[in-house]
């Protein structure tokens, strides 16, 4: 009987191992042969208790707004998401993020198209928190036509959509070769996006020096949150559930022992 428990546990770990092996293989397959060595960043959101670094996300939002947003949309996100619990501009005084004045202000920096309710004509107005991030191009063909034939991908889930995740996005942004701005070893050669970041491309309000490395880290932190906005909730619920299940497992074990106490097996 004991051996079968052992085998079951080993089996479980084999599955976990296989899952990780699978990811590693996928990562390895994505890389091409080049001298560039992927840097592994210790992200604030790594690990079982990891959370997003709020200041980094706020700076990252600024980088997104001032640099990325001219070509890349965040089409599955609304401005109100910025003020959600776990988000970059969350304020506990405003449970409803649409009431958060910071979020209202950020939304007001953007313009969205709408319909005039009297004439039915298309108009442009200031965004409000419930609006989605606006489309940049009217369609995919237009997007490709204005960007060297390749439509800039949407960034809402980009960190999840690339094997390697946050590390990939960060490395992609810093790996540009200064002499060949359209080549990127992380991407694997020619890339339609020319090096987007340069020293002091933005001016951070908190005085952080805007190096390429810093901006790449910050915008990745922001995009990691955008791709998985409920991560903090998930992890904290996960901890509670794991503790609960551990207690239940111990109780179940004693129940089992009690039920079987008079049976030889």
């Amino acid at each position, binding site marked *: *009987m004991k051996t*079968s*428990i052992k085998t*079951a546990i080993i*089996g*479980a770990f084999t*599955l*976990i191992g*296989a*899952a*990780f*092996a*699978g*990811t590693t*293989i*996928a990562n390895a*397959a*994505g890389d091409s042969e080049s001298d560039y060595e992927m840097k592994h960043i210790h992200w604030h959101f790594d690990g*079982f208790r990891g959370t997003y670094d709020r200041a980094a996300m706020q700076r990252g939002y600024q980088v997104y707004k001032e640099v990325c947003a001219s070509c890349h949309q965040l*089409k*599955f*996100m609304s401005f109100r*998401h910025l003020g959600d619990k776990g988000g970059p501009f969350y304020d506990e005084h405003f449970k409803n993020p649409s009431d958060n004045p910071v979020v209202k202000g950020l939304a007001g920096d953007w313009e969205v198209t709408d319909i005039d309710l009297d004439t039915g004509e298309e108009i442009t107005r200031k965004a409000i928190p419930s609006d989605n991030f606006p489309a940049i191009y009217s369609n995919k063909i237009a997007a490709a036509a204005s960007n060297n034939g390749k439509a800039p*991908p*949407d960034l*809402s*889930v980009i960190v*999840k*959509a*690339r*094997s390697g*995740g946050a590390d990939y996005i960060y490395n992609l942004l810093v790996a540009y070769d200064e002499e060949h701005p359209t080549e990127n070893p992380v991407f694997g050669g020619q890339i339609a996006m020319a090096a987007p970041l340069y020293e002091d491309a933005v001016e951070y309000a908190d005085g952080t020096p805007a190096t390429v490395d810093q901006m790449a880290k910050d915008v990745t932190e922001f995009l990691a949150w955008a*791709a998985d*906005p*409920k991560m903090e*909730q*998930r*992890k904290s*619920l*996960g*901890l509670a*559930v*794991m503790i609960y*299940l*551990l207690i*239940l*497992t111990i109780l*179940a*074990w004693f*129940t*089992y022992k009690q*039920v*079987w106490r008079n*049976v*030889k*097996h």
Partner: protein
Amino acid sequence: MSGHPSTYEPKNGFTKWMDQRLPIIRMGADFMTYPSPRNLNYWYTFGGILTLCLVAQIITGIILAMHYTPSVDAAFESVQRIKRDVPFGWLLQPMHAVGASMFFFAVYIHMFRGLYYGSYKAPREMVWILGCVIYLVMMATGFLGYTLPWGQMSFWGATVITGFFGAIPVVGESVQQWLLGGYAVDNATLNRFFSLHYLLPFVIAAIVGLHVWAMHHAGQNNPVGIEPKSKEDTLSFHPYYTAKDFFAICIFLLIFAYFLFYYPDSLGHADNYIEADALETPAHIVPEWYFLPFYAILRAVPSKLLGILLMFAAVAVLFILPWLDTSKVRSMRFRPVTKLWFILFVIACFVLGWHGALSPDDPVMGVKSVWWSRAATLYYFSFFLIILPVMGLIETPKDRPDSITKSVLGEASS
């Protein structure tokens, strides 16, 4: 549904009234008191675990269907909305996706257990065959479900799988386009896949009912593979096996929760977070991990039709397994040589799964991946078609105990 004499006695007026009209309480009571062999080990808890998986998938699935939109323009976005805006959607969506993986993880252990202890042998052929049908329908359901998020892997997976039918001589293309409802995977395909994905779990539930009925009718197999001979050899299902199953379920849920809360995407593929694009194929199409062994078999053969036939044969061979294994001994515990072949078979399945994830040209230990797949495929079929039929005839089994009780008491010290 149980094959043992009923010991249920209605006690009050209502239960007596019911018992004469619809003996459903009797059915439940008989189920709970079903005499199970006293020596069932933890490998036998996966039936209970799988029942839980099915129920969990149906519940989370019904919930997701309340929020999901089956349309090529809205499917991807509606899944994002579930994860971002629907109350607890961030929990329920990965519960369903990770749950599918856990379901297959459990079903594979359940199947290997049946193989090892000879649970497919007379008089349990129908239990096994119904199990194979469940597995087939599960595969269909898993595949259909993976299409629904409408990511790149959804789209191209659906394209490749439906392409199998295109390999049928003469009528292939017509059949494929009939399945798709168009020239390629499109809105019509997504809609019918959603409809069928919702239907099939209930078909599974019905077949599970038959599977359990057949098992109770023929009696449960057990690790020594000897039929219970006296009352001493059995224990009432409740509380003995409910308690044991419950403990096993707790362990299973711990593993489930670990993936659900900390690595919800580790069992999926990054490309499925890219919205489906009919103009661009991902560099490296792979199915979900639970299909990888079959994918490796498919690619082991350079001919399209032959590869597909071989892949279907890999499942079909399971159906005739009860008649391929000629041994009179059920449990591999008493088949010292076949046991080693079995271990090798499990390894072959893992090798297939591993190489299903690689590109055929990737070298592994100096050998191209496709050759690993070929060797493992060859062994997979040899195990069923040569080893099991021949070993049954030539192998000398070990001495078996006279009864389950004797085996339990005799082995208690070891």
